[in-house]
């Protein structure tokens, strides 16, 4: 109890600090710490799958994206400070935020006891999916359409990032070329850590069918390893016009969609699996989806194309 109260106070404190921080970079650091503390909260309320996702995507990957953004914004920061919104606008924004928070708090507090839940049904039908982890069953079987749309949303986000590229560099490689010292610290750690990280990423993905883990968490680790190898200068980011890259990016959603359509023939509905092959089909979807998500996340962090394509 004391631990949980302390954790809640800490999360709220870091949240307030993040909002109040003047410096963009400091706010991003606060946000990362906030995400890691939030992951601890998820562990405390027995949701390790959400905790893993929060730590990997919410804190790690989003933190990386925001760090990149804060570096790009640094030059414009002093100019932006001069255009601060007036007191009235800020008051209205604060008021609306308080209203949303109060509404959420009221809903949670007014829930009937016990709160309505679909957990018993999810657990009861687990055997039909061939999976051992009910969270994965929700993501890949009961609500597979949501997961399919999520993979498409990620692709759309990448299209949005790429569309920021000026015409003359279109089709080129994202970000600057990182020239690291081959004998330097970063190259050393990348050589040591990337193989281990790839193994951990595949492990997290693979155990997801029976234990906490899954394709989003595993893919984030794989993406982080690719980013590390690129930042250490061990490999260059591929030009965004490469055919293999485009195929890799759409492989996951395409296979997902194809198997979903095949569900009409095999089981009579979109994204329905015939019971005998449920586990096999789910894994067949998960493998390309993991690779596609990993590539999409890594390229999101790498940013829009900045260099002319080499012919």
């Amino acid at each position, binding site marked *: 109890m004391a631990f949980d109260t302390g954790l809640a106070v800490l999360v709220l404190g870091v949240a307030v600090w993040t909002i109040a921080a003047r410096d963009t970079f400091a706010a991003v650091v606060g946000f990362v710490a906030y995400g890691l503390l939030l992951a601890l909260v998820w562990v405390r309320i027995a949701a390790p799958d959400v905790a893993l996702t929060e730590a990997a995507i919410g804190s790690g990957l989003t933190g990386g994206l925001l760090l990149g953004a804060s570096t790009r914004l640094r030059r414009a920061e002093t100019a932006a400070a001069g255009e601060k919104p007036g007191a009235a606008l800020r008051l209205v924004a604060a008021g609306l935020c308080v209203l949303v928070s109060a509404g959420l708090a009221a809903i949670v507090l007014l829930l009937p006891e016990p709160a309505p839940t679909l957990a018993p049904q999810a657990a009861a039908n687990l055997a039909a999916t061939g999976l051992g982890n009910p969270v994965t069953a929700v993501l890949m079987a009961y609500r597979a359409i949501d997961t399919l749309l999520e993979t498409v949303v990620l692709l759309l986000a990448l299209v949005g990032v790429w569309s920021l590229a000026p015409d003359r560099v279109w089709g080129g490689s994202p970000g600057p070329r990182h020239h*690291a*010292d081959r004998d*330097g*610290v*970063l190259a*050393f*750690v990348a050589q*040591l*850590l990337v193989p*281990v990280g790839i193994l951990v990423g595949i492990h997290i993905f693979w155990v997801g069918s029976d234990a906490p883990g899954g394709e989003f968490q595993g893919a984030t680790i794989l993406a982080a390893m690719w980013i590390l190898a690129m930042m250490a200068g061990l490999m260059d980011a591929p030009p965004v016009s490469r055919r293999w890259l485009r195929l890799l990016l759409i492989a996951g959603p395409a296979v997902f969609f194809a198997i979903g359509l095949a569900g009409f023939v095999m089981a009579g509905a979109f994204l329905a699996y015939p019971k005998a092959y449920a586990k096999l089909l789910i894994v067949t979807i998960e493998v390309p989806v993991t690779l596609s998500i990993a590539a999409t996340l890594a390229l999101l962090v790498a940013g829009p194309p900045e260099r002319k394509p080499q012919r």
Partner: protein
Amino acid sequence: MSLALDALTILAVCVGACFFLAGTVGLLRFPDSLSRLHALTKADNLGLGFVVLGLLFQVEGPFAALKLISVWLLTLLAGATVTQLIARAARPGGAQE
């Protein structure tokens, strides 16, 4: 037997917590970046090391123990690298790489 193991766990985790506390105080109180990094690595290396050591008395089976030790080793690697990179950037007139 389990009482002795629990006692060892409590002892090791408490020692680890002391290193975390000392590292945090150092991080807040030391005057310059390099000595703050020095304080921080104590929390990473010894603090986490003792916490992992304490948890090792509670694990079921060798694989869980291996996982815990791997976590510590990976943290050591990441901590040492990041410390090097920050120290180079913080060094007076220090280069970026």
